[in-house]
């Protein structure tokens, strides 16, 4: 134990030391911003100072070569400061307008993508997937790479009615969060249980308690204490899998993708909204998941053509109605779209408000 070092519990570091001096000087004293071109923001302070931001899309899983390349660009063409957005976009900030064009050129020559501001389809926020998660039904980085390859023009331009946030999640816990469009794993079969391992690996009462629909109960199987699932009650959510790995939920064929729309975290106009199911049964098809991307593109096309300025995806659908949405994106409407969870009744149409 002699070499054991006591940690310094310093917690969250002070950002002041890493902040661009113009941002430090004008902290809390910004007056307005403009959007001179896609991927670039110009913020003006009451003091008259300006800061120019160039937003850059990357592969998010950065290797050291890429991280150092991004730092090199920051040193040579920006002022040596880097900010990251919530959606893992990288931002260079410079205090001088003349630095913007050379910076953009350097970024693009190095293979990174300038964009992601305002009414663009910005970077897909994503989770870990097969690269690092212990319970993933799919990959995340691969799905995102495949989709961004096809959506890159929408990242580089700002032609959408409002901003579009896309998210992905590799399990139904949904670490990816809420998005205008969300591509999430949806399991379709109950877990397959390895009864030989349950007693040794799983704390059985915790697993029983974890099930959202009380479908799991303790049982003796082949003379060993194990767990059994009432498959008539099971909703195939996979909540039992993390605390009990012998209850394998992932399946090469039956783990599917589902697409949800209309999640929005902003309070602008309406209150924040959760996303709603629109498509399921989509094959989990590596390495490029073409079926999921095709549906996302159909939704984006209909939204781009049909929505009015400032309408987010959910607001657009709210105006045109769900029947027309399903028509326009050519997706089937099924009994699975009707909510069965707590509070479901609030989603039923208790009126004669019908569009014809």
């Amino acid at each position, binding site marked *: 134990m002699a070499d054991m070092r006591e940690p310094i519990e310093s917690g969250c570091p002070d950002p002041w030391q890493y902040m661009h001096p113009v941002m430090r000087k004008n902290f809390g004293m910004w007056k307005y911003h403009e959007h001179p071109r896609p991927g670039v923001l110009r913020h003006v302070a009451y003091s008259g100072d300006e800061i120019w931001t160039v937003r850059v899309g990357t592969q998010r899983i950065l290797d050291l070569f890429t991280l150092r390349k991004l730092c090199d660009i920051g040193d040579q063409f920006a002022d040596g400061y880097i900010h990251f957005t919530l959606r893992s976009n990288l931002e260079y900030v410079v205090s001088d307008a003349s630095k913007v064009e050379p910076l953009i050129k350097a970024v693009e020559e190095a293979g990174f993508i300038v964009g992601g501001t305002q009414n663009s389809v910005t970077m897909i926020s994503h989770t870990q997937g*097969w690269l690092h998660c212990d319970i993933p039904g799919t990959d995340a980085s691969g799905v995102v790479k495949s989709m961004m390859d096809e959506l890159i023009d929408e990242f580089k331009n700002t032609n959408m009615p409002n901003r579009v946030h896309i998210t992905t999640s590799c399990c139904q816990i949904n670490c990816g969060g809420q998005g205008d469009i969300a591509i999430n794993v949806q399991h379709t079969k109950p877990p397959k249980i390895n009864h030989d391992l349950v007693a040794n690996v799983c704390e059985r009462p915790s697993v029983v308690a974890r099930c959202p629909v009380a479908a799991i109960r303790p049982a003796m199987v082949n003379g060993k204490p194990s767990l059994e699932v009432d498959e008539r009650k099971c909703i195939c959510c996979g909540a039992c899998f993390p605390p009990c790995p012998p209850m394998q939920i992932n399946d090469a064929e039956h783990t599917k993708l589902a697409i949800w729309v209309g999640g929005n975290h902003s309070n602008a106009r309406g209150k924040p909204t959760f996303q709603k199911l629109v498509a399921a049964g989509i094959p989990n098809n590596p390495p490029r998941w073409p079926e999921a991307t095709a549906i996302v593109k159909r939704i984006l096309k209909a939204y781009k053509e049909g929505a009015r300025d400032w309408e987010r995806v959910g607001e657009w659908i709210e105006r045109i109605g769900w029947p027309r949405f399903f028509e326009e994106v050519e997706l089937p409407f099924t009994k699975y779209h009707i909510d069965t969870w707590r509070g479901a009744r609030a989603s039923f149409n208790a009126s004669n408000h019908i569009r014809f």
Partner: protein
Amino acid sequence: MAIEKHPTPMLDQLESGPWPSFITGIKRLRDEHPEERINEMTNDLLGQLEHSYETRKGYWKGGTVSVYGYGGGIIPRFSEVAHAFPKSKEFHTLRVQPPAGNHYTTAILRQLADSWEKYGSGLVTFHGQTGNIMFIGTDTKNTQHFFDEINEYGWDLGGAGPCVRTAMSCVGAARCEMSCVNELKAHRLLVNNFTDDVHRPALPYKFKFKISGCGNDCQNAIERADFAVLGTWRDDMKVDQEEVKKYVQTKGRQYIIDNVISRCPTQALSLNDDDTLTVNNRDCVRCMHCLNVMPKALHPGDDKGVTICVGGKRTLKIGDLMGTVLIPFKKLETEEDWESLVELAENIIDFWAENGLEHERCGEMIERIGLANFLEGIGIDPDPNMLNHPRQSSYIRMDGWDEAAEAWFERQAEAGK
């Protein structure tokens, strides 16, 4: 010594196309990095990932790894197919707290990269969904070495497991004219008050702080945080009428009517015949829409503060919950104001730690026991701002009504209303 590279025909397909490829990046570590340890580790990582792509299954399992003195902060990963991919058989992630607001210099990024190069796989992400820098891929021994090194120059682990998690805050006052609160101060004051609860998981489940400077809520605080802090203001919105006129001139009257006036959720705006704007500030809910459309003309007022929402979370277990209003408005000006913000968080976490069930988020506990009981538990008076509308069901025992009504009038009188 040349390594035997695993074939990766499926992953190779992720190297084409215009978006930067993470596979190409990992391959560079395998092929070009001078250190053999990194070549071998990323080679086996690619091998295992290819195996996942072929079989559509994940092959990592969790475990118990931390650093000396802490109980969390590491996401342990042990390979289930280590016999085939031994060099990445331990592939833990260190969750490291970023500076509030995610500001970096290239110098500090290089320093972190140099440390990681000594001990890790060479893969890093800014940032994970909880908000941490994720240093992805190292073994148990090097987890400690890497932490020791970066901890010496000011970096600390974030949360993992049932604990207070790494907090998140928007760029805010550093670069945004909408900012209504010192987000960085709120972020650090809150999370750094709970470093013990970050590093030693002992709560019912995770607890997240997120801070957004205005109602645009760029940090998804309402949807994802147990304790959401949102900047707002309570005096009048600032209107620069000359700039309003300029917007009308350049964008057109119809554009302003369709996109500003009629999109106001509480019909608090009207465009006058002389192209100036009238705002009914008592009806305005500070949703931010009109400020977003006309950032040069409209600004938050001077009497700034925060709204605090509690109980947001994602799906597991009872379904998604939004955070709901607990404190409609709170000034954060004096040191006492800031102290009382931290005290509020302490009270909530203490109450939840005592009353939450295992694996039950704060919002789920509130759902189970009822908002009114939660308010009583933490000593906060009910306020109509907490609701969309009052109850619709008559099924409640109300024989305490007279006392509750009297208490309301007393509070109103104290507040000078």
